[in-house]
């Protein structure tokens, strides 16, 4: 099943006992693109990555990575990919430099190039000052950076990033996004899983939306946003946003398609143009006072809410017990 695409997946399925974690998914990742796998926690993103990296055997279906079958040519696949797991999992007892050298040894980098490559990566990730620091002593952001650096030791053409910015502070997350963009500019194909809609919007050329193990849409962020453009989206500021029946009352209004809450405001999708007069009167009759109204362009988040039928809050739930 050799193909020109970086990743080719057909009917990939994974059962854990009776539980269907990944349900006959199909997709293709082109060489040189940043492909996002977007879905809430437990959707099947990590299971999919683990199958594509050869860590898990699929229950059914086929996939090729870098032109090699994940089932039959696992070692070939592993030598051509770099993987950054969800948990930064380098060796605590080794220094930053030793970790990179060890990865170079595992990937068969010749001795005379190993040191040079490790130095280059430490510079690229601004970790020169932490060269001799134990991995266990690094901050969460530095650990994440070094884990990405370790995945790049053998200069793979394809890199898998599993929730790369999860749990990081704003600055570290921004730095990592910059590095992802640099890698893409150098021609690396990037497969990225995230439950962060904004991150997917900022980084990805195409996005697959996965929910309950099923891919329900694959398209560019722009095309996904267009799918909700037939709607009008408005943001309402309310005097007392915590009133118990407010959300349900808005949902119940004839013409409202979707409603989600962003802090103290409500983002409402109307089917067609908003019937302002009747809508405001409807709210007034129920003692709900509107303080502000903004018309919004549809976002990827709106598209996600529409496509999946899930509330945006479900994407904000972090996995329990996640470590850096």
């Amino acid at each position: 099943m050799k193909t020109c695409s970086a990743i080719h997946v057909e009917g990939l399925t994974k059962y854990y006992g009776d539980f269907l974690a990944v349900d006959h998914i199909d997709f293709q990742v082109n060489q040189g693109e940043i492909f996002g796998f977007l879905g809430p926690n437990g959707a099947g993103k990590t299971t999919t990555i683990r199958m594509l990296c050869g860590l898990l055997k699929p229950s059914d279906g086929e996939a090729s990575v870098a032109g090699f079958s994940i089932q039959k040519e696992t070692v070939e696949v592993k030598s051509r990919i770099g993987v950054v797991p969800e948990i930064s999992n380098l060796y605590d007892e080794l220094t930053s430099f030793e970790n990179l050298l060890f990865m170079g040894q595992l990937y068969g980098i010749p001795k005379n190039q190993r040191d040079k490559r490790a130095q280059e990566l430490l510079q690229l990730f601004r970790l020169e000052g932490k060269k001799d620091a134990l991995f266990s002593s690094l901050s969460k952001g530095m650990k994440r950076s070094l884990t990405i650096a370790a995945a790049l030791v053998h200069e793979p053409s394809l890199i898998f990033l599993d929730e790369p910015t999860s749990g990081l502070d704003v600055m570290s997350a921004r730095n990592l996004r910059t590095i992802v963009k640099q890698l893409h500019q150098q021609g690396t194909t990037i497969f990225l899983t995230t439950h962060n809609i904004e991150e997917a919007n900022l980084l990805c050329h195409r996005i697959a939306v996965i929910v309950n193990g099923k891919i329900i849409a694959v398209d560019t962020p722009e095309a996904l946003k267009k799918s909700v453009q037939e709607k009008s989206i408005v943001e309402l500021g309310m005097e007392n946003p915590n009133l118990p029946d407010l959300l349900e009352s808005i949902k119940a209004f004839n013409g409202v398609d979707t409603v989600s809450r962003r802090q103290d405001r409500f983002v409402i999708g109307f089917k067609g143009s908003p019937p302002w007069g009747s809508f405001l009167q409807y709210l007034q009759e129920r003692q709900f006072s509107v303080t502000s109204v903004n018309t919004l362009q549809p976002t990827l988040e709106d598209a996600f809410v529409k496509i999946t039928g899930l509330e945006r809050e479900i994407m904000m739930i972090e996995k329990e017990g996640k470590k850096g």
Partner: protein
Amino acid sequence: MMLSSELKAIYFISLKDIKSYYFKPPNISWGIIFPLAMTLAFYLRNPKGMIDLIPGLLGMTILFGSTSMEAVVITFERRLGSFERLLLAPVSLEGVLAGKILGGAFFGFVVSSAMLIVSLFFFSFPRFNLFFLIPSLILSALVFSSLGAFVSVAVKEVFEAQTLANLFRFPMIFLSGVFIPVVILPLPVQIISYFLPLTYSVESLRESLLTSHNIISYWVSILVLVVFSFGLY
């Protein structure tokens, strides 16, 4: 090409384990002090008959040296997720395990060799044969390191690894001729003894150091240890 890179990866995995886990001061002291303390305890109790216990104590040293850290290292790395780094590398699972087992076996071999060297200062072994001794020590270290790896894949927590390893180790010490010769054990217990790798380890060491009149010949013991190595691997 593929075989060469696999062998190199195996070498680097064991080297990394040896450097970062095994040859750290606490492990060296534990690996050497524990068997020396045991030897001293037996020596003080019965100085004259001590020489007969040396093969058994050597076997026990390899058993503890190879299994203890091996089981803990793999379980510890699996717990932290760093074991996954090895599985993500272009090395087969067999290669990863071989690297891990060789690291543990090397430690067991070095610790038992250190004990052997110390014992040479105190005892004159009637049938000391280095060419018999070295294969016996190496194979025993490989068998027990594989046993440690076997234990580690069956558990999730480090303390479980130690508990499960002890479940194998302590019965072996009493049933494999370390302290009590297998021939004087009741017949049903003797049958169990012949299913335990430590029996063959002790028997081959005894023939390499003390006597040619063993219940199991050296070459049979060596063959059985080879079978155990592959079986457990």
